Protein backbone atom coordinates (compact mmCIF):
# COMPACT_ATOMS: atom_id res chain seq x y z
CA UNK A 1 0.00 0.00 0.00
CA UNK A 2 2.75 2.42 0.87
CA UNK A 3 4.32 1.71 -2.49
CA UNK A 4 1.86 4.17 -3.96
CA UNK A 5 3.05 6.89 -1.59
CA UNK A 6 4.07 10.04 -3.42
CA UNK A 7 7.66 10.91 -2.69
CA UNK A 8 6.93 14.47 -1.76
CA UNK A 9 3.26 15.11 -1.32
CA UNK A 10 2.55 18.29 -3.26
CA UNK A 11 1.35 21.04 -1.02
CA UNK A 12 -1.89 22.66 -2.03
CA UNK A 13 -0.86 26.13 -2.98
CA UNK A 14 2.71 25.09 -3.34
CA UNK A 15 4.67 27.14 -5.77
CA UNK A 16 5.79 25.40 -8.93
CA UNK A 17 9.51 24.96 -9.13
CA UNK A 18 9.66 27.52 -11.88
CA UNK A 19 12.24 25.51 -13.70
CA UNK A 20 10.48 25.98 -17.03
CA UNK A 21 10.22 29.68 -16.40
CA UNK A 22 13.94 30.00 -15.92
CA UNK A 23 14.73 27.94 -18.97
CA UNK A 24 12.49 29.97 -21.20
CA UNK A 25 14.26 33.12 -20.06
CA UNK A 26 17.78 31.89 -20.40
CA UNK A 27 17.52 29.95 -23.62
CA UNK A 28 19.00 32.26 -26.20
CA UNK A 29 16.81 32.31 -29.28
CA UNK A 30 19.12 33.48 -32.05
CA UNK A 31 20.11 36.91 -30.89
CA UNK A 32 22.72 39.29 -32.32
CA UNK A 33 26.27 38.63 -31.12
CA UNK A 34 26.39 41.87 -29.18
CA UNK A 35 23.50 40.75 -26.97
CA UNK A 36 25.13 37.42 -26.41
CA UNK A 37 28.30 39.07 -25.18
CA UNK A 38 26.32 41.27 -22.84
CA UNK A 39 24.48 38.23 -21.56
CA UNK A 40 27.72 36.46 -20.73
CA UNK A 41 29.11 39.51 -18.99
CA UNK A 42 25.90 39.87 -17.01
CA UNK A 43 26.00 36.27 -15.92
CA UNK A 44 29.60 36.51 -14.84
CA UNK A 45 28.75 39.61 -12.81
CA UNK A 46 25.83 37.84 -11.15
CA UNK A 47 27.89 34.81 -10.23
CA UNK A 48 30.72 37.02 -9.00
CA UNK A 49 28.47 39.02 -6.70
CA UNK A 50 26.81 35.85 -5.42
CA UNK A 51 30.22 34.44 -4.62
CA UNK A 52 31.16 37.61 -2.79
CA UNK A 53 27.98 37.49 -0.71
CA UNK A 54 28.55 33.80 -0.02
CA UNK A 55 31.99 34.66 1.27
CA UNK A 56 30.45 37.19 3.66
CA UNK A 57 27.95 34.61 4.86
CA UNK A 58 30.41 31.81 5.41
CA UNK A 59 33.35 33.84 6.71
CA UNK A 60 32.18 34.27 10.33
CA UNK A 61 31.93 30.47 10.67
CA UNK A 62 35.40 29.90 9.38
CA UNK A 63 36.69 32.73 11.55
CA UNK A 64 35.09 31.22 14.66
CA UNK A 65 36.30 27.73 13.86
CA UNK A 66 39.87 28.83 13.25
CA UNK A 67 39.89 31.09 16.34
CA UNK A 68 39.00 28.11 18.49
CA UNK A 69 42.34 26.55 17.54
CA UNK A 70 44.40 29.65 18.36
CA UNK A 71 46.10 30.52 21.63
CA UNK A 72 44.54 33.45 23.48
CA UNK A 73 47.00 36.03 22.25
CA UNK A 74 46.28 35.32 18.59
CA UNK A 75 42.49 35.11 18.60
CA UNK A 76 42.01 38.53 17.06
CA UNK A 77 44.82 38.29 14.53
CA UNK A 78 42.24 37.54 11.80
CA UNK A 79 44.35 34.88 10.15
CA UNK A 80 42.34 32.04 8.69
CA UNK A 81 45.03 29.46 9.35
CA UNK A 82 46.16 29.69 12.97
CA UNK A 83 49.79 30.70 13.31
CA UNK A 84 50.05 28.37 16.28
CA UNK A 85 47.62 25.49 16.15
CA UNK A 86 46.42 24.29 19.52
CA UNK A 87 43.72 22.04 20.93
CA UNK A 88 44.29 23.53 24.36
CA UNK A 89 41.07 25.62 24.21
CA UNK A 90 38.94 22.53 23.92
CA UNK A 91 40.75 20.97 26.85
CA UNK A 92 40.29 24.15 28.89
CA UNK A 93 36.59 24.39 28.13
CA UNK A 94 36.21 20.75 29.07
CA UNK A 95 37.96 21.41 32.41
CA UNK A 96 36.25 24.71 33.17
CA UNK A 97 32.69 23.54 32.63
CA UNK A 98 30.76 20.28 32.45
CA UNK A 99 30.39 20.65 28.70
CA UNK A 100 29.95 16.94 28.10
CA UNK A 101 27.08 16.89 30.58
CA UNK A 102 25.53 19.96 28.94
CA UNK A 103 25.77 18.31 25.56
CA UNK A 104 24.02 15.21 26.86
CA UNK A 105 21.34 17.37 28.50
CA UNK A 106 20.76 19.24 25.26
CA UNK A 107 20.61 16.03 23.29
CA UNK A 108 18.03 14.51 25.64
CA UNK A 109 15.87 17.62 25.78
CA UNK A 110 16.08 18.12 22.03
CA UNK A 111 15.21 14.53 21.22
CA UNK A 112 12.27 14.48 23.61
CA UNK A 113 10.97 17.81 22.34
CA UNK A 114 11.31 16.88 18.69
CA UNK A 115 9.68 13.47 18.95
CA UNK A 116 6.83 14.58 21.19
CA UNK A 117 5.97 17.69 19.22
CA UNK A 118 6.12 15.86 15.90
CA UNK A 119 3.94 12.95 16.94
CA UNK A 120 1.36 15.09 18.71
CA UNK A 121 1.23 17.71 15.95
CA UNK A 122 0.82 14.96 13.37
CA UNK A 123 -2.09 13.50 15.34
CA UNK A 124 -3.81 16.85 15.54
CA UNK A 125 -3.07 17.71 11.94
CA UNK A 126 -4.57 14.41 10.84
CA UNK A 127 -7.65 15.16 12.90
CA UNK A 128 -8.04 18.39 10.96
CA UNK A 129 -7.10 17.02 7.56
CA UNK A 130 -9.01 13.77 7.37
CA UNK A 131 -12.25 14.12 9.32
CA UNK A 132 -15.07 16.36 8.18
CA UNK A 133 -17.41 17.83 10.70
CA UNK A 134 -19.12 21.07 11.45
CA UNK A 135 -17.03 23.64 13.27
CA UNK A 136 -13.80 22.32 11.85
CA UNK A 137 -13.03 25.60 10.12
CA UNK A 138 -13.60 27.61 13.28
CA UNK A 139 -11.46 25.25 15.34
CA UNK A 140 -8.66 25.43 12.82
CA UNK A 141 -8.95 29.21 12.82
CA UNK A 142 -8.34 29.03 16.56
CA UNK A 143 -5.19 26.97 15.98
CA UNK A 144 -3.90 29.60 13.60
CA UNK A 145 -4.86 32.42 15.93
CA UNK A 146 -2.69 30.99 18.70
CA UNK A 147 0.32 31.44 16.45
CA UNK A 148 -0.15 35.20 16.54
CA UNK A 149 -0.11 35.55 20.30
CA UNK A 150 3.27 36.82 21.53
CA UNK A 151 4.97 34.23 23.72
CA UNK A 152 5.39 36.87 26.42
CA UNK A 153 1.70 36.82 27.26
CA UNK A 154 1.57 33.13 28.16
CA UNK A 155 5.13 32.88 29.47
CA UNK A 156 4.50 33.86 33.08
CA UNK A 157 1.39 31.72 33.73
CA UNK A 158 3.13 28.82 31.99
CA UNK A 159 6.04 29.22 34.38
CA UNK A 160 3.61 29.27 37.29
CA UNK A 161 1.99 26.03 36.08
CA UNK A 162 5.33 24.23 36.05
CA UNK A 163 6.17 25.80 39.38
CA UNK A 164 2.88 24.60 40.88
CA UNK A 165 3.55 21.00 39.87
CA UNK A 166 7.08 21.22 41.20
CA UNK A 167 8.85 20.90 37.86
CA UNK A 168 10.79 24.16 37.84
CA UNK A 169 14.51 23.41 37.89
CA UNK A 170 13.94 20.21 35.94
CA UNK A 171 14.17 19.78 32.19
CA UNK A 172 10.55 18.71 31.85
CA UNK A 173 9.15 22.17 30.96
CA UNK A 174 11.66 22.38 28.12
CA UNK A 175 10.04 19.57 26.18
CA UNK A 176 6.73 18.59 27.78
CA UNK A 177 4.87 21.44 26.07
CA UNK A 178 5.57 19.56 22.87
CA UNK A 179 3.23 16.76 23.94
CA UNK A 180 0.35 19.07 23.12
CA UNK A 181 1.36 19.86 19.60
CA UNK A 182 2.34 23.18 18.15
CA UNK A 183 0.11 25.29 15.94
CA UNK A 184 2.87 25.95 13.46
CA UNK A 185 3.60 22.27 12.85
CA UNK A 186 -0.09 21.36 12.87
CA UNK A 187 -0.51 23.86 10.07
CA UNK A 188 2.49 22.54 8.16
CA UNK A 189 1.56 18.86 8.50
CA UNK A 190 -2.09 19.44 7.73
CA UNK A 191 -1.07 20.95 4.41
CA UNK A 192 0.80 17.76 3.57
CA UNK A 193 -2.00 15.47 4.75
CA UNK A 194 -4.51 17.32 2.61
CA UNK A 195 -2.41 16.49 -0.41
CA UNK A 196 -2.74 12.72 0.10
CA UNK A 197 -5.20 10.76 -2.05
CA UNK A 198 -8.32 10.13 0.01
CA UNK A 199 -9.43 7.12 -2.01
CA UNK A 200 -6.52 5.08 -0.67
CA UNK A 201 -7.73 5.57 2.89
CA UNK A 202 -11.32 4.77 2.01
CA UNK A 203 -10.16 1.57 0.35
CA UNK A 204 -8.18 0.62 3.45
CA UNK A 205 -11.24 1.32 5.55
CA UNK A 206 -13.24 -1.09 3.36
CA UNK A 207 -10.55 -3.66 4.04
CA UNK A 208 -11.14 -3.22 7.77
CA UNK A 209 -8.40 -0.79 8.78
CA UNK A 210 -9.34 1.37 11.75
CA UNK A 211 -8.59 5.06 12.22
CA UNK A 212 -5.38 4.44 14.06
CA UNK A 213 -4.03 2.02 11.48
CA UNK A 214 -4.88 4.42 8.69
CA UNK A 215 -3.06 7.24 10.46
CA UNK A 216 -0.07 5.38 11.81
CA UNK A 217 0.58 2.81 9.10
CA UNK A 218 -0.51 4.74 6.03
CA UNK A 219 -0.79 8.53 6.33
CA UNK A 220 2.31 9.05 8.44
CA UNK A 221 4.68 7.03 6.21
CA UNK A 222 3.26 8.79 3.17
CA UNK A 223 4.24 12.14 4.65
CA UNK A 224 7.79 11.23 5.54
CA UNK A 225 9.31 14.42 4.06
CA UNK A 226 6.99 16.59 6.13
CA UNK A 227 7.69 14.56 9.24
CA UNK A 228 11.42 14.87 8.74
CA UNK A 229 11.02 18.59 8.15
CA UNK A 230 9.07 18.99 11.39
CA UNK A 231 11.67 17.01 13.31
CA UNK A 232 14.46 19.13 11.85
CA UNK A 233 12.71 22.42 12.64
CA UNK A 234 12.05 21.35 16.20
CA UNK A 235 15.54 19.98 16.72
CA UNK A 236 16.86 23.36 15.65
CA UNK A 237 14.40 25.26 17.85
CA UNK A 238 15.08 23.10 20.92
CA UNK A 239 18.84 22.99 20.45
CA UNK A 240 19.14 26.76 20.18
CA UNK A 241 16.59 27.69 22.82
CA UNK A 242 18.03 30.06 25.41
CA UNK A 243 15.06 31.61 27.14
CA UNK A 244 13.48 28.30 28.21
CA UNK A 245 16.55 27.07 30.09
CA UNK A 246 17.13 30.60 31.37
CA UNK A 247 13.70 30.59 32.97
CA UNK A 248 13.43 27.01 34.19
CA UNK A 249 16.91 25.78 35.10
CA UNK A 250 18.87 26.69 38.20
CA UNK A 251 21.41 23.90 38.72
CA UNK A 252 24.42 24.06 36.48
CA UNK A 253 24.21 20.28 36.13
CA UNK A 254 20.91 20.62 34.28
CA UNK A 255 22.04 23.32 31.82
CA UNK A 256 21.74 22.94 28.11
CA UNK A 257 24.45 24.13 25.76
CA UNK A 258 23.05 27.61 24.92
CA UNK A 259 22.60 28.46 28.59
CA UNK A 260 26.00 26.99 29.37
CA UNK A 261 27.56 29.18 26.69
CA UNK A 262 25.80 32.23 28.06
CA UNK A 263 27.08 31.47 31.56
CA UNK A 264 30.61 31.00 30.26
CA UNK A 265 30.32 34.33 28.47
CA UNK A 266 29.27 35.99 31.72
CA UNK A 267 32.07 34.31 33.63
CA UNK A 268 34.92 34.79 31.21
CA UNK A 269 34.10 37.99 29.40
CA UNK A 270 31.36 39.83 31.26
CA UNK A 271 33.31 39.82 34.47
CA UNK A 272 36.10 41.80 32.83
CA UNK A 273 38.39 38.83 33.08
CA UNK A 274 38.78 38.38 29.35
CA UNK A 275 39.28 34.80 28.28
CA UNK A 276 37.80 34.96 24.82
CA UNK A 277 39.26 31.63 23.75
CA UNK A 278 36.89 29.81 26.10
CA UNK A 279 33.83 31.59 24.76
CA UNK A 280 34.93 31.14 21.15
CA UNK A 281 35.48 27.44 21.62
CA UNK A 282 32.20 26.98 23.45
CA UNK A 283 30.43 28.78 20.58
CA UNK A 284 31.93 26.31 18.14
CA UNK A 285 30.76 23.42 20.30
CA UNK A 286 27.25 24.92 20.31
CA UNK A 287 27.17 25.57 16.60
CA UNK A 288 28.84 22.53 15.04
CA UNK A 289 26.07 20.00 15.76
CA UNK A 290 23.58 22.34 14.07
CA UNK A 291 25.78 22.79 11.03
CA UNK A 292 26.23 19.02 10.78
CA UNK A 293 22.50 18.54 11.06
CA UNK A 294 22.01 21.11 8.35
CA UNK A 295 24.24 19.26 5.94
CA UNK A 296 22.43 16.01 6.68
CA UNK A 297 18.96 17.49 6.35
CA UNK A 298 19.77 20.17 3.78
CA UNK A 299 17.30 18.97 1.19
CA UNK A 300 14.42 19.08 3.64
CA UNK A 301 15.41 22.41 5.14
CA UNK A 302 15.79 24.31 1.91
CA UNK A 303 12.69 22.74 0.33
CA UNK A 304 10.77 23.23 3.55
CA UNK A 305 11.48 26.93 3.66
CA UNK A 306 10.51 27.32 0.03
CA UNK A 307 7.21 25.51 0.45
CA UNK A 308 6.26 27.99 3.12
CA UNK A 309 7.70 26.11 6.04
CA UNK A 310 9.67 28.58 8.08
CA UNK A 311 9.81 32.25 7.24
CA UNK A 312 12.84 32.89 9.41
Amino acid at each position, binding site marked *: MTATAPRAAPL*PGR*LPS*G*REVVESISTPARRPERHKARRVVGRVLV*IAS*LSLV*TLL*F*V*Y*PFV*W*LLSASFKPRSQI*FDNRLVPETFTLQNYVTVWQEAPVALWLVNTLVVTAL*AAVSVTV*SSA*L*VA*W*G*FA*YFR*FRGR*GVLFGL*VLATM*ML*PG*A*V*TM*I*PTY*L*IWDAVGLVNTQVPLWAGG*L*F*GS*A*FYVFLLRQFFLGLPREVFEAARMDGAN*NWTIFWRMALPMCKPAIVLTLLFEVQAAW*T*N*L*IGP*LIYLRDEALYTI*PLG*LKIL*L*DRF*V*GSGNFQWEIVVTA*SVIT*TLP*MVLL*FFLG*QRYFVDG*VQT*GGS*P*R
Partner: protein
Amino acid sequence: MSAVGAERPPSTPADLRALGPRLLRRGGGADRPPLRPGQRRARRRAVLAALAFMSPWIIGFLVFTAWPIGYSLYLSLTDYDVINAPTFVGLDNYVRLVNDPDVRLALGNTVVFTLLQVPTYVVLAFALALLLDKAGRSTGFFRTAFFLPRMTPPVAVGVLVLLLLNGQNGLLNVALGWFGIDGPNWTTDSFWIKPGLVLMSLWTVGGSVLIMLAALRNVPSELLDAAKVDGAGFWRRTWHVTTPLVSGPLFFLVVVNTIGALQTFTEAYTAYFGSTGGYGNDAALFYAIYLFQQAFQFFNMGYASALAWLLFLVVLAITAVQLVVSRKLVYYEGDR
Protein backbone atom coordinates in the same frame (compact mmCIF):
# COMPACT_ATOMS: atom_id res chain seq x y z
CA MET B 1 6.45 26.02 24.69
CA SER B 2 6.50 29.74 24.95
CA ALA B 3 9.28 32.17 24.55
CA VAL B 4 9.74 35.89 24.48
CA GLY B 5 11.89 35.91 21.40
CA ALA B 6 9.73 34.39 18.70
CA GLU B 7 11.73 31.17 18.64
CA ARG B 8 9.14 29.57 16.49
CA PRO B 9 8.00 31.70 13.61
CA PRO B 10 4.44 32.86 13.97
CA SER B 11 2.16 32.93 11.04
CA THR B 12 0.67 36.28 10.30
CA PRO B 13 -2.58 37.87 9.31
CA ALA B 14 -1.15 38.36 5.84
CA ASP B 15 -0.38 34.70 5.59
CA LEU B 16 -3.82 33.80 6.79
CA ARG B 17 -5.48 36.27 4.49
CA ALA B 18 -3.67 34.77 1.55
CA LEU B 19 -4.62 31.28 2.62
CA GLY B 20 -7.96 32.11 4.14
CA PRO B 21 -10.42 31.22 1.41
CA ARG B 22 -8.71 27.93 0.69
CA LEU B 23 -8.58 26.95 4.36
CA LEU B 24 -12.16 27.74 5.02
CA ARG B 25 -13.57 26.23 1.88
CA ARG B 26 -12.37 22.83 2.98
CA GLY B 27 -14.62 22.77 6.01
CA GLY B 28 -17.76 20.68 5.96
CA GLY B 29 -20.01 21.86 3.15
CA ALA B 30 -23.23 23.55 4.17
CA ASP B 31 -25.41 22.01 1.51
CA ARG B 32 -25.44 18.37 2.56
CA PRO B 33 -28.45 16.17 1.88
CA PRO B 34 -30.43 15.01 4.96
CA LEU B 35 -28.88 12.04 6.74
CA ARG B 36 -30.11 8.52 7.18
CA PRO B 37 -29.88 7.24 10.80
CA GLY B 38 -26.98 4.92 9.98
CA GLN B 39 -25.12 7.78 8.38
CA ARG B 40 -25.75 9.93 11.38
CA ARG B 41 -24.19 7.33 13.66
CA ALA B 42 -21.17 7.06 11.37
CA ARG B 43 -20.85 10.81 11.34
CA ARG B 44 -21.00 11.01 15.10
CA ARG B 45 -18.30 8.38 15.31
CA ALA B 46 -16.16 10.40 12.88
CA VAL B 47 -16.52 13.50 15.03
CA LEU B 48 -15.45 11.54 18.11
CA ALA B 49 -12.48 10.11 16.27
CA ALA B 50 -11.51 13.57 15.06
CA LEU B 51 -11.74 14.94 18.59
CA ALA B 52 -9.62 12.05 19.83
CA PHE B 53 -6.93 12.88 17.30
CA MET B 54 -7.11 16.54 18.23
CA SER B 55 -7.17 15.96 21.97
CA PRO B 56 -3.49 16.82 22.51
CA TRP B 57 -4.06 20.21 21.01
CA ILE B 58 -7.36 20.76 22.79
CA ILE B 59 -5.82 19.98 26.18
CA GLY B 60 -2.76 22.04 25.34
CA PHE B 61 -4.89 24.93 24.20
CA LEU B 62 -6.91 24.95 27.39
CA VAL B 63 -3.95 24.51 29.73
CA PHE B 64 -1.19 26.43 27.94
CA THR B 65 -3.06 29.11 26.00
CA ALA B 66 -6.59 29.83 27.17
CA TRP B 67 -5.91 29.64 30.89
CA PRO B 68 -2.60 31.56 30.66
CA ILE B 69 -4.28 34.36 28.71
CA GLY B 70 -6.92 34.77 31.38
CA TYR B 71 -4.52 34.36 34.25
CA SER B 72 -1.99 36.76 32.77
CA LEU B 73 -4.72 39.37 32.42
CA TYR B 74 -5.64 38.80 36.07
CA LEU B 75 -2.00 38.90 37.20
CA SER B 76 -1.51 42.21 35.44
CA LEU B 77 -3.96 43.64 37.97
CA THR B 78 -2.06 42.27 40.95
CA ASP B 79 1.18 42.50 42.83
CA TYR B 80 2.77 39.06 42.73
CA ASP B 81 6.26 37.93 43.72
CA VAL B 82 5.68 34.14 43.38
CA ILE B 83 6.28 33.60 47.12
CA ASN B 84 3.30 35.48 48.50
CA ALA B 85 -0.19 35.19 47.08
CA PRO B 86 -1.13 37.81 44.48
CA THR B 87 -2.72 40.94 45.92
CA PHE B 88 -5.17 42.83 43.77
CA VAL B 89 -3.98 46.35 42.96
CA GLY B 90 -6.34 47.37 40.19
CA LEU B 91 -4.74 49.35 37.40
CA ASP B 92 -1.65 50.27 39.42
CA ASN B 93 0.66 48.25 37.19
CA TYR B 94 -0.61 50.05 34.12
CA VAL B 95 -0.19 53.44 35.77
CA ARG B 96 3.31 52.49 36.80
CA LEU B 97 4.05 51.29 33.29
CA VAL B 98 3.06 54.59 31.74
CA ASN B 99 5.32 56.47 34.16
CA ASP B 100 8.26 54.07 34.07
CA PRO B 101 11.18 55.76 32.27
CA ASP B 102 12.70 52.30 31.64
CA VAL B 103 9.59 51.23 29.76
CA ARG B 104 9.90 54.30 27.58
CA LEU B 105 13.57 53.53 27.05
CA ALA B 106 12.98 49.87 26.24
CA LEU B 107 10.04 50.57 23.98
CA GLY B 108 11.94 53.34 22.21
CA ASN B 109 14.99 51.10 21.71
CA THR B 110 12.80 48.32 20.37
CA VAL B 111 10.93 50.55 17.94
CA VAL B 112 14.13 52.17 16.65
CA PHE B 113 15.71 48.75 16.21
CA THR B 114 12.62 47.48 14.38
CA LEU B 115 12.53 50.51 12.09
CA LEU B 116 16.19 49.97 11.24
CA GLN B 117 16.07 46.21 10.97
CA VAL B 118 12.93 45.37 9.03
CA PRO B 119 13.47 47.51 5.91
CA THR B 120 17.15 46.54 5.58
CA TYR B 121 16.38 42.89 6.13
CA VAL B 122 13.52 42.72 3.64
CA VAL B 123 15.27 44.77 0.98
CA LEU B 124 18.37 42.63 1.32
CA ALA B 125 16.31 39.45 1.12
CA PHE B 126 14.64 40.74 -2.04
CA ALA B 127 17.91 41.85 -3.61
CA LEU B 128 19.66 38.55 -2.92
CA ALA B 129 16.66 36.60 -4.20
CA LEU B 130 16.72 38.64 -7.43
CA LEU B 131 20.39 37.88 -7.76
CA LEU B 132 19.81 34.16 -7.24
CA ASP B 133 16.95 34.24 -9.71
CA LYS B 134 19.16 35.91 -12.30
CA ALA B 135 21.81 33.27 -11.76
CA GLY B 136 19.45 30.71 -13.24
CA ARG B 137 19.28 27.07 -12.37
CA SER B 138 22.48 26.01 -10.67
CA THR B 139 22.01 27.91 -7.43
CA GLY B 140 22.00 24.99 -5.01
CA PHE B 141 25.41 25.86 -3.65
CA PHE B 142 24.51 29.50 -3.04
CA ARG B 143 21.17 28.69 -1.50
CA THR B 144 22.89 26.38 0.95
CA ALA B 145 25.53 28.94 1.80
CA PHE B 146 22.92 31.65 2.39
CA PHE B 147 20.89 29.41 4.65
CA LEU B 148 23.83 28.18 6.69
CA PRO B 149 23.94 31.10 9.18
CA ARG B 150 20.37 30.28 10.14
CA MET B 151 21.77 27.17 11.78
CA THR B 152 23.89 29.21 14.17
CA PRO B 153 22.25 29.29 17.59
CA PRO B 154 21.18 32.86 18.46
CA VAL B 155 23.39 32.73 21.56
CA ALA B 156 26.39 32.12 19.36
CA VAL B 157 25.28 35.03 17.18
CA GLY B 158 25.30 37.14 20.34
CA VAL B 159 28.87 36.03 20.98
CA LEU B 160 29.77 36.85 17.38
CA VAL B 161 28.40 40.36 17.88
CA LEU B 162 30.91 40.93 20.64
CA LEU B 163 33.75 39.33 18.70
CA LEU B 164 33.34 40.66 15.17
CA LEU B 165 31.97 44.11 15.97
CA ASN B 166 34.40 44.83 18.74
CA GLY B 167 35.83 48.32 18.25
CA GLN B 168 39.55 47.63 18.66
CA ASN B 169 40.29 44.41 16.80
CA GLY B 170 36.90 43.24 15.54
CA LEU B 171 36.85 41.93 12.02
CA LEU B 172 34.33 44.50 10.78
CA ASN B 173 36.48 47.48 11.72
CA VAL B 174 39.57 45.79 10.37
CA ALA B 175 37.73 45.35 7.07
CA LEU B 176 36.52 48.94 7.12
CA GLY B 177 40.13 49.93 7.76
CA TRP B 178 41.14 48.51 4.37
CA PHE B 179 38.97 51.20 2.82
CA GLY B 180 40.42 53.83 5.10
CA ILE B 181 37.28 54.02 7.23
CA ASP B 182 37.75 54.36 10.95
CA GLY B 183 34.93 52.16 12.26
CA PRO B 184 32.97 53.13 15.36
CA ASN B 185 32.85 51.18 18.57
CA TRP B 186 29.90 48.97 17.62
CA THR B 187 29.54 47.18 20.94
CA THR B 188 30.04 49.99 23.45
CA ASP B 189 28.99 53.22 21.73
CA SER B 190 25.30 53.64 22.54
CA PHE B 191 24.61 55.15 19.14
CA TRP B 192 26.13 52.23 17.21
CA ILE B 193 24.85 49.28 19.23
CA LYS B 194 21.55 49.02 17.37
CA PRO B 195 23.06 49.34 13.89
CA GLY B 196 25.55 46.68 14.97
CA LEU B 197 22.79 44.30 16.03
CA VAL B 198 20.95 45.00 12.78
CA LEU B 199 24.11 44.21 10.85
CA MET B 200 24.51 40.88 12.64
CA SER B 201 20.85 40.06 12.08
CA LEU B 202 21.35 40.53 8.34
CA TRP B 203 23.68 37.58 8.50
CA THR B 204 20.70 35.30 9.05
CA VAL B 205 18.68 36.65 6.11
CA GLY B 206 18.96 33.35 4.23
CA GLY B 207 15.57 31.91 5.15
CA SER B 208 13.79 34.99 3.83
CA VAL B 209 15.88 34.91 0.67
CA LEU B 210 14.61 31.41 -0.07
CA ILE B 211 11.00 32.48 0.41
CA MET B 212 11.46 35.44 -1.93
CA LEU B 213 13.21 33.22 -4.46
CA ALA B 214 10.25 30.86 -4.49
CA ALA B 215 7.97 33.84 -5.08
CA LEU B 216 10.14 35.18 -7.90
CA ARG B 217 10.18 31.83 -9.65
CA ASN B 218 6.41 31.95 -9.62
CA VAL B 219 6.27 35.17 -11.66
CA PRO B 220 4.96 34.31 -15.13
CA SER B 221 7.74 34.78 -17.65
CA GLU B 222 5.31 35.95 -20.36
CA LEU B 223 4.77 39.20 -18.46
CA LEU B 224 8.50 39.83 -18.16
CA ASP B 225 9.04 38.94 -21.80
CA ALA B 226 6.24 41.26 -22.84
CA ALA B 227 7.80 44.10 -20.87
CA LYS B 228 11.13 43.30 -22.47
CA VAL B 229 9.63 43.49 -25.94
CA ASP B 230 8.20 46.85 -24.98
CA GLY B 231 11.73 47.96 -24.24
CA ALA B 232 11.75 47.94 -20.45
CA GLY B 233 15.21 47.43 -18.99
CA PHE B 234 16.03 45.18 -16.04
CA TRP B 235 15.34 47.78 -13.37
CA ARG B 236 12.04 48.90 -14.89
CA ARG B 237 10.89 45.30 -15.27
CA THR B 238 11.84 44.58 -11.68
CA TRP B 239 10.12 47.66 -10.32
CA HIS B 240 6.99 47.64 -12.46
CA VAL B 241 6.39 43.96 -13.14
CA THR B 242 8.19 41.75 -10.64
CA THR B 243 7.72 43.78 -7.47
CA PRO B 244 3.94 44.12 -7.72
CA LEU B 245 3.64 40.43 -8.49
CA VAL B 246 5.60 39.40 -5.41
CA SER B 247 4.19 42.09 -3.14
CA GLY B 248 2.23 39.43 -1.23
CA PRO B 249 5.24 37.42 -0.05
CA LEU B 250 7.18 40.66 0.40
CA PHE B 251 4.50 41.94 2.73
CA PHE B 252 4.48 38.60 4.54
CA LEU B 253 8.19 39.06 5.27
CA VAL B 254 7.62 42.62 6.49
CA VAL B 255 4.93 41.52 8.94
CA VAL B 256 6.76 38.43 10.21
CA ASN B 257 9.99 40.34 10.67
CA THR B 258 8.27 43.21 12.42
CA ILE B 259 6.68 40.84 14.90
CA GLY B 260 10.03 39.10 15.35
CA ALA B 261 12.00 42.33 15.74
CA LEU B 262 9.58 43.71 18.32
CA GLN B 263 10.27 40.60 20.39
CA THR B 264 14.05 40.53 19.92
CA PHE B 265 15.66 38.86 22.89
CA THR B 266 18.38 36.26 22.63
CA GLU B 267 21.12 37.95 20.59
CA ALA B 268 20.88 41.26 22.44
CA TYR B 269 20.56 39.58 25.84
CA THR B 270 23.55 37.36 25.20
CA ALA B 271 25.74 40.21 24.09
CA TYR B 272 24.74 42.91 26.54
CA PHE B 273 23.22 41.48 29.69
CA GLY B 274 24.78 39.17 32.18
CA SER B 275 23.62 37.03 35.03
CA THR B 276 26.59 38.53 36.81
CA GLY B 277 25.48 42.02 35.84
CA GLY B 278 28.09 44.56 34.91
CA TYR B 279 28.06 44.85 31.17
CA GLY B 280 24.51 45.89 30.51
CA ASN B 281 24.06 48.71 28.06
CA ASP B 282 20.96 50.85 28.08
CA ALA B 283 20.97 51.17 24.32
CA ALA B 284 20.42 47.43 24.01
CA LEU B 285 17.70 47.21 26.63
CA PHE B 286 14.94 45.85 24.41
CA TYR B 287 11.40 45.44 25.57
CA ALA B 288 11.48 41.64 25.80
CA ILE B 289 14.66 41.85 27.87
CA TYR B 290 13.12 44.34 30.26
CA LEU B 291 10.05 42.13 30.56
CA PHE B 292 12.20 39.09 31.25
CA GLN B 293 14.16 40.94 33.92
CA GLN B 294 11.01 42.14 35.66
CA ALA B 295 9.52 38.65 35.62
CA PHE B 296 12.44 36.35 36.29
CA GLN B 297 15.14 38.44 37.90
CA PHE B 298 13.06 40.73 40.13
CA PHE B 299 10.02 38.42 40.23
CA ASN B 300 7.56 41.24 39.64
CA MET B 301 5.15 38.88 37.96
CA GLY B 302 2.19 41.24 38.10
CA TYR B 303 4.08 44.14 36.56
CA ALA B 304 5.66 41.88 33.96
CA SER B 305 2.21 40.62 32.98
CA ALA B 306 1.09 44.18 32.39
CA LEU B 307 4.23 44.69 30.29
CA ALA B 308 3.34 41.59 28.28
CA TRP B 309 -0.09 42.97 27.51
CA LEU B 310 1.35 46.29 26.40
CA LEU B 311 3.66 44.38 24.05
CA PHE B 312 0.71 42.44 22.73
CA LEU B 313 -1.19 45.68 22.05
CA VAL B 314 1.80 47.23 20.31
CA VAL B 315 2.28 44.16 18.11
CA LEU B 316 -1.42 44.08 17.33
CA ALA B 317 -1.58 47.79 16.51
CA ILE B 318 1.45 47.70 14.22
CA THR B 319 0.22 44.57 12.46
CA ALA B 320 -3.19 46.16 11.99
CA VAL B 321 -1.65 49.31 10.50
CA GLN B 322 0.44 47.18 8.17
CA LEU B 323 -2.64 45.26 7.08
CA VAL B 324 -4.54 48.44 6.29
CA VAL B 325 -1.63 49.92 4.38
CA SER B 326 -1.10 46.66 2.54
CA ARG B 327 -4.61 46.71 1.20
CA LYS B 328 -3.51 49.57 -1.02
CA LEU B 329 -0.08 48.21 -1.86
CA VAL B 330 -0.32 44.46 -2.08
CA TYR B 331 -1.55 42.67 -5.12
CA TYR B 332 -3.14 39.27 -4.58
CA GLU B 333 -3.70 37.18 -7.64
CA GLY B 334 -7.25 35.92 -7.84
CA ASP B 335 -8.34 38.53 -5.34
CA ARG B 336 -10.29 40.67 -7.79
